[in-house]
């Protein structure tokens, strides 16, 4: 059998098994093992690849950022940040919709998990939104869309996985995600202001109320400072920053702000332990799948097709990749998608002479969009379930919000200087800059 045929068979088997209802991790493993039977590779080494796929210290950041999100969601500490958001933007048109978006921006700076964000908002603000007359479908659509920022604004689990598998600076990806993350937030706020439900108009909070709310939220809002401060100062790796944030929450935040929750901590750990294994089981399967894609020269095959159309033009290559990942993100979870397609991404980054960090943030921004698109929009699925509305209705209400994501993706592709401004100034090495001999200045490509 030719490599292309084996590649096609492996992909078709994975999708067929996956859409029949086999768990993603097993569908990936089954597809790979079936393909292995038609190659010179032994089954034994492919099973070994499952282990090697997760045997990475960098991936340790994933459970820490999930643990942080889980602890914040279950300990009810997050409501202090909701209160702060209410005093800041609650008086605007569509006040609670604005609160959802602003809170998600704050929460994105603490947790790297979109589903933790959805859980917090669905348990709290969603109920108030219903009382104020917002329809459930809009509530679910907005919560899911806003939650996607958790994967762009640092810390981000997708950035950790991308950095670990693509050998790109995770700190750089964190910083590069800020601009698209904030753009999505601003876009959602503008949409809610002009075209969203009106809600109940409230009085603007007094400066005293804002100060009181800010004081209440001060302790949770230290977490982004710990994470990014630790990484940028060189004190911690992203993994260690995640650990410090988790320890800060269960050793300082919860005892000070919600002492009753201390007895629940063992349960939080058990559940977080289960939660982190789910994406990483998919990572194990996807890394074997990605390895086989590379072995079968998949990147060369795809690169030939893409360059036949785009030549070496970086912009066209990126837009073609965006189109591909919009489709991929509709059907496959982002984490396995990153790992499976990484050999292809690396190849095309070389072909187009694209900055790997720029390519990374474009791919992550595109995959984030997949969290709210059918049939596999994980955030929208979870939000519609929590809010209690049909997935189809939530999808319909999400359609206008897609414009925000298309605009952000286009901006990220077309303006690399703005997107990479933060990493270039705070982590110059991450964008390929190097120190000029004998001075403290950097020379950048």
């Amino acid at each position, binding site marked *: 059998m030719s490599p292309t045929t084996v590649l096609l068979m492996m992909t078709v088997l994975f*999708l067929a*098994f996956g*859409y*029949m*209802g*086999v*768990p*993603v*991790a*097993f*569908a990936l*493993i*089954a597809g790979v*093992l079936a393909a292995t039977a038609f190659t010179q590779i032994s*089954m*034994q080494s492919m*099973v*070994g690849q*499952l*282990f090697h796929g*997760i*045997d990475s*210290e960098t991936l*340790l950041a994933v*459970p820490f950022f999930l*643990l942080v999100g889980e602890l914040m969601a*279950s300990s009810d500490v997050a409501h202090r940040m909701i209160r702060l958001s209410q005093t800041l933007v609650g008086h605007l048109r569509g006040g609670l919709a604005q609160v959802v978006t602003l809170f998600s921006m704050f929460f994105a700076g603490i947790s790297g998990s979109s589903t933790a964000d959805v859980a917090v908002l669905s348990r709290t603000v969603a109920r108030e939104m219903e009382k104020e007359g917002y329809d459930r479908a809009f509530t679910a659509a907005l919560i899911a869309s806003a939650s996607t920022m958790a994967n762009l604004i640092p810390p981000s689990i997708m950035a950790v996985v991308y950095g670990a598998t693509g050998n790109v600076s995770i700190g750089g990806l964190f910083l590069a995600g800020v601009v698209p993350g904030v753009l999505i937030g601003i876009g959602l706020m503008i949409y809610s202001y002009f075209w969203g439900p009106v809600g109940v108009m409230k009085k603007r909070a007094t400066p005293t109320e804002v100060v009181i709310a800010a004081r209440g939220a001060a302790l949770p809002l230290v977490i982004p400072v710990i994470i990014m401060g630790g990484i940028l100062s060189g004190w*911690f790796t992203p*993994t*260690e920053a995640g*650990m*410090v944030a*988790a*320890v800060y929450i269960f050793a300082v935040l919860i005892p000070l702000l919600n002492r009753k929750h201390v007895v629940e901590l063992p*349960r939080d*750990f*058990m*559940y*977080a*332990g*289960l939660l*982190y*294994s*789910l*994406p*990483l*089981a998919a990572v*194990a399967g996807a890394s074997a799948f990605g390895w086989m894609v590379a072995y079968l020269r998949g990147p060369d095959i795809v690169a030939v097709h893409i360059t036949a159309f785009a030549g070496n033009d970086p912009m066209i290559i990126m837009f073609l990749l965006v189109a591909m990942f919009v489709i991929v993100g509709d*059907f*496959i*979870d982002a984490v396995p998608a990153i790992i499976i397609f990484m050999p292809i991404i690396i190849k095309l980054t070389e072909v187009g002479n694209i900055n790997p960090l720029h390519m990374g943030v474009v791919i992550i921004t595109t995959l984030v969009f997949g969290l709210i698109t059918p*049939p*596999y929009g994980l955030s929208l699925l979870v939000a*519609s*379930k929590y809010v209690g*509305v*049909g*997935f*189809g*209705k939530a999808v319909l209400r999400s359609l206008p919000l897609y414009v925000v994501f298309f605009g952000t993706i286009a901006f990220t592709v077309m303006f690399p200087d703005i997107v990479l401004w933060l990493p270039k100034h705070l982590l110059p090495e991450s964008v390929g800059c190097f120190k000029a001999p004998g001075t403290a200045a950097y020379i950048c490509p």
Partner: protein
Amino acid sequence: MADFRALILQRHRQLKWKAFDPLEAALMILCGVCIAMFTLAVLLDVVTRTIGAPWLWLQQVTTAFFAWGVFIGMAAATRRNDHFYLTEITKRMTGGSRTAIEVINRLIVLVVAVLLIWCGTQNAILDLGSYRMPSLIPLTVYTAIVPIMGVLILLFTIEQLVNGWKHGFEGPEDRDDSREAIL
């Protein structure tokens, strides 16, 4: 809605044998132990490095707990039907077609589990001769979890196949889920 944080998930109860409940509880506790232990290990790593007396072997302890946690969680998620799915299409099916698809899905998982046990055991035996530096821990300590996980997945899949065949795969939760999806 089922309590997803419960030690033993009551969702799809008809697919479970009571005898395996303690195993599910033990796996959940081990998930918590693994994440707690590697949190502690990374904390100690940072502390010992900061005070200028790093314990280099801590990184190996960390990755061991991390990897074990992933595979233990994978086994627990199999019993709890908690894995990531591309679609939940089977939940909207009933009767014979539902049974057929559910059986095929579990047979695929069963084959994967058998391969994980067989190839994983061979790998683990081979790894007895390889060591991680600087702790000199045999690589088998890490990779032995793959066949162990395979055995657990095999057990849980057989449990679901037998019970699903006897009592049907459809549970009351699925009816709620599909109603929500249609609305």
